[in-house]
Each structure stands twice: as C-alpha cells, then as structure tokens.
C-alpha cells in the first residue's frame, strides 16, 4: 500500500505469482501490500487499467478476474495468483474492435474517455450473463461506473446496440468498419 513508507518497502518479502493476462502468462514478483492495479499498470504495462479514486468508488480500475468484475484497486496482487485476467486491451484481437467498443463509438458516448476501460468491461460482464438486458438492468450493472462527462444516457443506448451486434453474430469489427 502506498501508505507504507518508502524506507520500509524492502522489509517485506517478494512473492512470485503467475498471472494470465489477456491469454498470456506472466510471472511477476510482487510485495504483499501491492495492489493488482499497480502490478498490471506499472509492472506489466496494461495502462488500460486506470486509477481513479483508488478506493473502489469510481469503477475506472475494474477488470474481469476469472470472469468476475472486480476493482483492481481493492484486490491485492497476491490474491490474483493463478487467475485469468481480462483488461480492455485483451477484449478484441489485435487491430479489431469489440462490438461494445463499436457501439460506444456509434452512439457518440465517448467524451474524455477516462472511465471507458471500466465501462467497457462492466458492459462485457453484463452482456456475458444477460445478452438482452433491460434499461433497469443496465442502470444497475453500470451503477458503479462514474463518468464525470455524463455520458450515462448514451451508455444505455450503447449497451442495447452492442447486445444487438452480438446477437447478430458480429462480435468484432475491422478498422474499416468503424466510424472515422
């Protein structure tokens, strides 16, 4: 944790853990107080994991850990040992966009974009378990994702559009299909 003074950092032993991030295995040494957020972002370079509040309130840092949406700022790295992690980088194959990303673009939901990695993964978690959500279910599923630009109403449209794309069997889009 960042509250541990710098001179005490070395007092804690290193723990070697294995993480499967976006389908690739990584072995990484972590300290017992380190958050999964810091390991993913600073040690492994997955900068799609954003730090917003650092206390589980804003939803910018959420990732899918073993298929479950969790805030990476409140998960100690050591606890993630051996788990499968999906960040926004791993959502679609290289050079393609996922239906959720395409839908968010189509509905002009993106403004500053800082909350988006979290929003996209929250939508993914929702659509994975409920391919055809109602407005209420969308609102509940995204209730933890704070967007200070205020794109909330467009999120609802986007989720419905993404659900439609996936139902139609179009999960990934090429670059040429995406609005410029």
């Amino acid at each position: 944790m960042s509250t541990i003074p710098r001179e005490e950092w070395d007092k804690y032993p290193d723990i070697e853990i294995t993480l499967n991030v976006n389908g690739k295995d990584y072995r990484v040494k972590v300290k017992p107080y380190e958050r999964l957020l810091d390991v993913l972002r600073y040690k492994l370079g997955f900068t799609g994991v954003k730090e917003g509040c650092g206390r589980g309130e804003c939803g910018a840092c959420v990732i899918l850990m073993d298929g479950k949406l969790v805030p990476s700022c409140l998960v100690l790295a050591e606890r993630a040992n051996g788990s499968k992690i999906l960040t926004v980088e791993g959502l679609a194959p290289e050079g393609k966009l996922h239906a959720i990303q395409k839908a968010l673009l189509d509905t002009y939901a993106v403004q500053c974009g800082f909350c988006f990695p979290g929003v996209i993964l929250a939508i993914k978690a929702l659509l994975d378990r409920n391919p055809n959500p109602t407005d209420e279910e969308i609102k509940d599923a995204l209730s933890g994702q704070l967007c200070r630009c205020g794109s909330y109403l467009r999120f609802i449209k986007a989720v419905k559009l993404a659900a439609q794309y996936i139902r139609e069997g179009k999960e990934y889009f090429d670059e040429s299909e995406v609005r410029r």
Partner: protein
Amino acid sequence: MGGGSDLLVLIRSGIVKANTVLDLWPLRKELAYIKREKGTVRIGALTTISELCESDLIKDIRYAGLADVCKKFSTPFIRNIATVGGNVGAAHPLSDMVLMLLVLNGKVKLLSKNGKRVVDITKFFKGKRQTVRNYDEIIAEVSFTEAPPNSSTAFIKFDRRWGHAMGYVLVGAYMQLHDNIIEDVRIAFDSMGNPYPERAWKTEEFLKGNEFSDELIKQALNDVLPKEMKRITDYRASAEYRLDLSKVLLRRALLKIKSRIEGGD
C-alpha cells in the same frame, strides 16, 4: 481481512495502521457456502454478496429483504469481493447485510485456536467499528433459523440515488402475519442512538399481537419510535430529517412485507 473492500480503503487513507494483515481469502474453499439444513440457514463468512444474490435463498419470498439488499448493496463490482462475514466484522452502522441478520435473529460463529463460540448478532457490536470479537478469533459463519410461513422481510435504504449509495437511513424489517394479526415483528435501523445497527425493541413490543392497521402503525411511529430512537446531525443529514425519514421508511417496509405475505411484491 475478508474481501478487503473496507479494510484496504481504511489502510490507504491512514485511518487504520496495520503492520500485519491476515488475508482469509485462501479459506474460501471451506468458508464460502450457503447451506439450508435442519431448519437453519448457514452462510459462510467468506461468501461474497454476489454469490448470496445468485443463490436460491433470496428467491424465497420470506427472504425478499435479502433480495432488496442485493439491489442496493454498493456496486456490482464491490458485491463480487465484499463478503457477508466482512460486512458483519466491519461493524459499520450502514451495513445492509447486518440489518437483515438483525431482523432474522442472526447468530455469528467465531472460531479460534481454543474453540468456537456463537454470539447473538444483537450482542455482537460494541461501538463504531468495534465488536466483541477477540483478536485471535475469526468470523466463520452467520446463521439464522428459517423464517416461518406467513412471514416476510423487507429492506429499504434511502439516499439521493439508487445505486452506489450509503443511505441516510436504513431500515430492515421482518413480520409474521396471521389473519392480519401481527404474530411477530422485528425491526432494525442503522442506528438507534449508538453508532451501530440495532433493533427497535420497544416499537416491536408495541406492534406485537395487535391487528395490522394504519391506525396502529401511525401510533407506533408517532408515539413509540421517537422515544427510543436518537438520531444525530452530521454533514449528510440532520437529526430531525433522519427521524422523520425513519418513520416513513418503517411504514413503507411494513406495508411492503404485508403485500409480500399476501402474494404481491
């Protein structure tokens, strides 16, 4: 530490100084379960809120209050790591799960090297973030007796928005009706005067055994509840507002339970 959604925040903001934290997560294999046997519901301390919400338990109309909790408990991603035992152990007044356990006559099982003991949840809290748990004990399980038929529960949290809210006032209630007579009733608020959730004993006593009517509830809310409840004023809401809100929400909760028992929602 259970899920860590509370403790890690406290450590990071410097409120709790911890040299050593014992993470119980590896015990999930043994301590994450929901069992219903011999008329008792037992929930392992490391069961996450979302596991509870996906279980069959909350589909039972008697535990509709737990389903209310599921809708209002923080955010979907916190529900994935927050645990039932952690919610009890955190001993925060605004603990949704604790309120439901209070009205369901919940019991907390504590384990230590020297054995186990079971504490009634009404006697579990000592103060804000203080419980009777000793340092060498862990919360292993919460349990309650299955509610009888003709009974139901409700939980209401009031805040400016629906999701992701702490709540100005929280109320949990359980009621058993028989021919419109209140056989049994249990009411819990986030605070009755102490900084931890408690039951509204006198209001319960007043309602018990009487016929369910608007008149009776009005009397309980205006004459009995204000006498035993002491609310505080802080930056979030004033004491008058909280007391007024408590009355309104209790009324709503009781009406909701009545309609649930009668087959509606």
